[in-house]
């Protein structure tokens, strides 16, 4: 298993948070009302993952070049942790030609074939794709793994169950990661799901299922390391459900009236200051790490803003028909 490096885990969580905090600001800077999603320099819906960094950082710490991740509509934390280029990501978010999809995809469609990273706005669709990656890895005789990520809401989709079934049947090197943030848009888990843990569902398909509580990056790191090692060693698929927290709205512009009193407790549940305290970082260290992340993010925003906007003619390029 990869050695745990607390400072690296912390820095990566901060890097993601600063990226998203900046996207949040830039996104709202030119939208009025906030839900006018077509307006401004960053068009379209925006699903940010603040609070869920431990899941991405704990899992991706064990991945190597050539391993695959399929992420859902809330993809930034996994993309950044998996090594997707921040400039190309930011440019895609701004809809520029230097973006990962030449500005045609936006934030929910970050495709990076070189890093085997993809995501999609159609929830749970990444599960079968991850099984495909895993089948290819297995047939080629490599020790690569595929990681499929989605929310607890997505785990009620047929594609999730079909994928668990096939992965178990074919003993594929895939790790199914469920980020349980208690909400699927405005629907609490208790209103949608007969199982209270997807670890239980894994048991039904004959694969190990583990639930990590408390949004703890080191606990995620250990469990993910064990699951990924198993997959590399040919021991087959497993499922990791991570109880995490969505600190912001489902999408930007979501007033979150449905969350009631929970909204007041969110600051206390932020995993980043909690981890800084747990590993004993000083205020100066925290500030320096944040400043380093900010300068990387500044450069990415500058790169995006300096990049060309697609022309009308570009609409006809890179299409099938």
């Amino acid at each position, binding site marked *: 298993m990869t050695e745990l490096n607390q400072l690296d885990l912390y820095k990566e969580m901060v890097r993601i948070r600063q990226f998203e905090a900046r996207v949040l600001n830039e996104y709202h800077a030119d939208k009025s009302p906030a839900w006018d999603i077509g307006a401004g320099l960053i068009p379209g819906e925006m699903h940010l993952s603040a609070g869920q960094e431990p899941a991405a950082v704990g899992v991706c710490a064990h991945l190597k070049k050539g391993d695959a991740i399929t992420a859902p509509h809330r993809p930034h934390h996994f993309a950044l942790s998996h090594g997707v280029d921040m400039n190309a990501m930011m440019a895609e978010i701004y809809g520029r030609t230097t973006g990962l999809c030449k500005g045609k995809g936006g934030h929910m469609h970050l495709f990076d074939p070189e890093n085997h990273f993809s995501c999609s706005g159609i929830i749970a669709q990444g599960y079968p794709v991850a099984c495909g990656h895993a089948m290819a890895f297995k047939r080629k005789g490599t020790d690569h793994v595929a990681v499929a990520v989605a929310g607890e809401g997505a785990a009620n989709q047929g594609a999730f169950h079909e994928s668990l079934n096939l992965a178990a049947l074919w003993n594929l090197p895939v790790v199914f990661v469920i980020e349980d943030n208690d909400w699927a848009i405005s629907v609490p888990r208790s209103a949608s799901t007969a*199982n*209270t843990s997807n670890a239980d569902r894994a048991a*039904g398909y004959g694969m190990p299922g*583990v639930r990590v509580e408390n949004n703890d990056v080191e606990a995620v790191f250990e469990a993910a390391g064990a699951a990924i090692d198993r997959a590399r060693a040919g021991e087959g698929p497993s499922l990791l459900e991570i109880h995490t927290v969505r600190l912001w709205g489902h999408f930007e512009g979501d007033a979150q009236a449905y969350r009631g009193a929970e909204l007041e407790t969110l600051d206390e549940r932020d995993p980043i200051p909690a981890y800084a305290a747990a590993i004993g970082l000083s205020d100066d260290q925290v500030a320096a790490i944040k400043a380093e992340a900010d300068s990387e993010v500044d450069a990415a925003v500058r790169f995006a803003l300096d990049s060309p906007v697609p022309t009308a003619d570009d609409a006809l390029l890179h299409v099938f028909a």
Partner: protein
Amino acid sequence: MKDARAVGVVANPASARDIRRLVAHGSSVTAHQKLNQLRRLMVGLGRTGVQQVLVMGDRSGIAIGLVEASGRPSGAGWPSVEIIDEDLTNTAADTVNATRRMVAAGVGVIVVLGGDGTHRLVADECGLTPIVAISTGTNNAFPIPLEPTVAGMAAGLVAGGRLDVERVARPAKMLEVRCPGSGRSERALVDVAILNTERIGSGAVWEPGTVEELFLCFAPPDGIGLSAIGGHLQPVDRHEPVGLAIRLAATGPPPSGAPTQRVAAPIGPGLIAEVDVASWSKLAVDQPVTAATTSGTVAIDGERMFRFDSELTVTLRADGPLVIDVAEAMEFAARSGLLTGPVAT
């Protein structure tokens, strides 16, 4: 004054879902299976005259599922079910809170379904209220697998006063670990392990190479977990007034001693480790011993709990929770004819 007709039930929703399913061959116990166990328990409790059950609330649908099931035709004859769900946190604190409230309500018995950790939390709070300890999972030393129907009958007979608690329950041993430097103190029902790792991480202990010292309340040779290491050096049963202290010849830096013995110990489900032992000795009740290690992490009953960097003392105590021996209780019930009688004509 105990209310003989009420019984408390603590079922840990989180047991059998941790990393041991990945690093060993731990089995999964689903929330639905736990609810099913509680249904069987209710039949045993109801049939032996228990009127009311106070059940710990949870966010896994177990307690709510039980209330719902009690309203179905198949729930006829069950005790009434009341959920203790004030201030739920979805953490171990729920077990502590619920146990306190059960004791305050004067329940006659508390039935616990969970692993070593769940039982430890109950043990810290249950005082003189006897417990029935049921294992849900595969990596437990303290609770044992029991059929809840039968365990419910035993609990009901004790709660109703038809079985004398003195005859069928005995106090468990506990280990008290104190770190005067930090003021931290915890109690263990099975083992205290001193690890040379700095990480708490997922909690579970599965790498024997990280263990420097081990203190055991009991050491069954047929047990599973760290206590099995002791079981093969010097078997100690649950009721003997001694414990064990073991220095492992871990791979780490001093104070690891030179190995003198190698034990093949089943330290987890499907996980047998070759463990090198430097020395071991018996622990006497109420005699504090000082750990040789002065920094690292303390694991209580197989869960990494806290870091320390000063002296630690460990003391064996004989005043743990009163545990009902279900086999003994049922044998006594049989000999006393508590569940037999003439055919009504």
